[in-house]
């Protein structure tokens, strides 16, 4: 492998555009002709469907925190275009490396929502099978997943497999050293990795202005020799177009891409946070009018690709899925204490076996005492 062959010769080829690329403006009208190609009608319809279902899932998950069914939930409301657009651009064989914020994306990738929410329900850490789903466990230690995505992608190259790894991260996570090490590694080894930064304006309470002094987060790519793209993160069509192109380039051996999607976190950091402490309502309002879901709806309606009937049918599907999720999440789960000792090592150590026995004996006594009291 010769790392340098695919490097574009001119820095200008690597730099992002000055304004975010877009295909559909906030009102739902086609954006002025640019370098992006509008996805096929059928893709636009799938994007819309994914966003409507994703938003309903997200609202349902937030509601489940209020009912005490989830320990916590970091909402992605307002980020649907990024969550859905990026994931739908992946091919079957590609991998997704999501964060705690990206439950919606993981569900859109096809993972059972109850398995996704296992973490936040407190049953276990990761509730799905990463290899089967081609989705890494949702990552909380910020930016650490960028390196995993680079490694997985590089392994694919080494093994001669056609697999691209898409890693999701936030604006805040771009300040961590790991992000920079990952970008550099990816560039040096020309790995098929797509870095998708959702710049939602905040890292908990800290605004982007305190996070970076760069013209954009996408500009960080140039220093590593990585092609970078700045995209309107509330425009699902544009997100899909740039991620698809990045995936295609990666698959063709043309290396990694850094994408910054400019969007906004409508809700607080999580249900436990109070965003009124650090931002005003007017700012939130200014983003509500750029809503990604109604933007695509307006465009599709204008183009005759969405009518009232189809819209209503989709809403009904979303409601039905939410009701089903609610019902499944309202079942009390019983966690098996033996699970605590099961997966620490490939084979249970004698010490862990002893500790498991200690706990089971203790639980037997507790149960017997409770019986006595009944």
């Amino acid at each position, binding site marked *: 492998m010769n790392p340098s062959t695919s490097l574009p010769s001119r820095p200008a080829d690597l730099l992002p555009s000055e304004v975010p690329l877009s295909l559909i403006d906030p009102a739902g009208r086609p954006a002025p002709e640019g370098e992006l190609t509008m996805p096929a009608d059928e893709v636009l319809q799938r994007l819309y469907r994914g966003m409507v279902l994703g938003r309903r899932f997200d609202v349902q998950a937030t509601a489940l925190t209020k009912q005490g069914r989830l*320990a*916590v939930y970091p909402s992605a409301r307002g980020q649907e275009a990024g969550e859905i657009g990026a994931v739908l651009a992946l091919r079957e064989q590609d991998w997704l490396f999501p964060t705690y914020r990206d439950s919606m994306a993981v569900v859109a990738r096809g993972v059972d929502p109850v398995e996704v929410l296992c*973490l*936040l*329900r*407190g*049953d*276990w*850490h990761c509730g799905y099978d990463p290899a089967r789903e081609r989705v890494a466990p949702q990552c*909380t*230690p*910020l930016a650490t997943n960028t390196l995993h995505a680079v490694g997985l992608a590089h392994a694919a190259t080494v093994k001669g497999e056609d697999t691209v790894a898409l890693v999701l991260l936030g604006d*805040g*996570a771009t*300040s*961590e*050293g*790991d992000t920079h090490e990952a970008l550099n590694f990816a560039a040096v080894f020309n790995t098929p990795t797509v870095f998708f930064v959702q710049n939602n304006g905040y*890292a*908990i*309470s*800290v605004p982007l202005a*305190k*996070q*970076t002094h760069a013209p954009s987060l996408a500009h960080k790519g140039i220093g590593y020799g990585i092609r970078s793209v700045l995209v309107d993160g509330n425009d699902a069509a544009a997100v899909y177009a740039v991620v698809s192109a990045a995936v295609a380039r990666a698959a063709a051996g043309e290396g990694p891409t850094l994408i910054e999607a400019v969007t906004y976190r409508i809700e607080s950091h999580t249900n436990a*946070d109070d965003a009124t*402490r*650090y931002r005003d309502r007017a700012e939130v309002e200014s983003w509500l009018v750029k809503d990604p879901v109604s933007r695509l709806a307006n465009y599709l309606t204008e183009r005759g690709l969405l009518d009232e009937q189809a819209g209503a049918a989709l809403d009904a599907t979303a409601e039905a899925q939410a009701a089903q999720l609610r019902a499944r999440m309202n079942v009390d*789960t019983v*966690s098996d*204490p033996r*699970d*605590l*000792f099961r997966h*620490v090592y490939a084979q249970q150590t004698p*010490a*862990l076996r002893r*500790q498991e026995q200690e*706990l089971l004996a*203790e*639980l037997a006594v*507790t149960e017997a005492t409770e019986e006595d009291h009944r």
Partner: protein
Amino acid sequence: MSTVAERLPELAAAPIPVTMAGALNQALADALATDERVLVFGEDVGTLGGVFRVTDGLATRFGENRVFDTPLAESAIVGTAIGMAMNGLRPVVEMQFDAFAYPAFEQITSHLAKLRNRTQGRVELPIVIRVPYGGGIGGVEHHCDSSEMYYAHTPGLRVVTPATPADAYTLLRQAIDCPDPVIFLEPKRRYWAKETTVLEPAGAGIDRAVIRRTGSDVTLISYGGALGTTLEAAEAAAEDGISAEVIDLRSLAPFDEDTVAAAVARTGRAIVVHEASRFCGYGAEVAAQLSERCFHYLEAPILRVAGFDIPYPPPNLESHHLPSVDRILDAIDRLQWPDAVNGTKAGR
């Protein structure tokens, strides 16, 4: 919104009800007010006042020059704190949660802990790293680690952990005044515990353990988040006729061996209680030191009540992992009491 720091007159003499988070807030405010070299920075510690509100109101009161949010990078937070300390300031930095301090590990172990030694005492780093730690709050993964041993095993770092609001105040003031780097571990599950007390900087020294309850039959040794459970167990043991003494270590590094050894020499029996995993946990060090120093006074092996040797469990299973009153009482039963009918002092 008035902050705890504003509501409390500085060093109020009358006892007031205060949470541990409030006491820490007051300690930071008083340190900032009395020493202009003190700075507070980290993630979300400015405008938001910290995710646990420990720095609430400080940025407004002391200005952005002294209390500020940094870019999201723990290694940078500790690394720049080292540079600031080399230039005469006294940084107090926050790691948002236990597991999120790990990116700073290199700065902590290779530089913070060693610079004094490497420079034959010429470079002093009076830095405090505040770390909310431990479980018991139903937190999801990476939010509940008991990370004390990573630090305690590193020579050059002081490691302290308060268990009460009053002590949180005293220890933090002492930590900020200390010429050595201090890893200041704050037990999250105690943040909202209230106590009616006077907050004062003077108290037991930063490196001293204190006896929280006197007793003559057995010494229970604990710290941080597990201390409350240990005190409850001592209470319950009293009903069984066992007089348990409870020591709050406060300082994990250095270890106050004199206080602990003297206590155990009196009672002849000891149990160490902590949330962290048992294997290579703090209890192992305590047990080793006590058997070296008090062997001839011991009536029974020193026991440990600790977390299992597993990664911290998910919320729905954490109660199995954490030391409980029953587990401590069971350990007390196993201390080879001489006058027992069936092996226990009280014949339980």
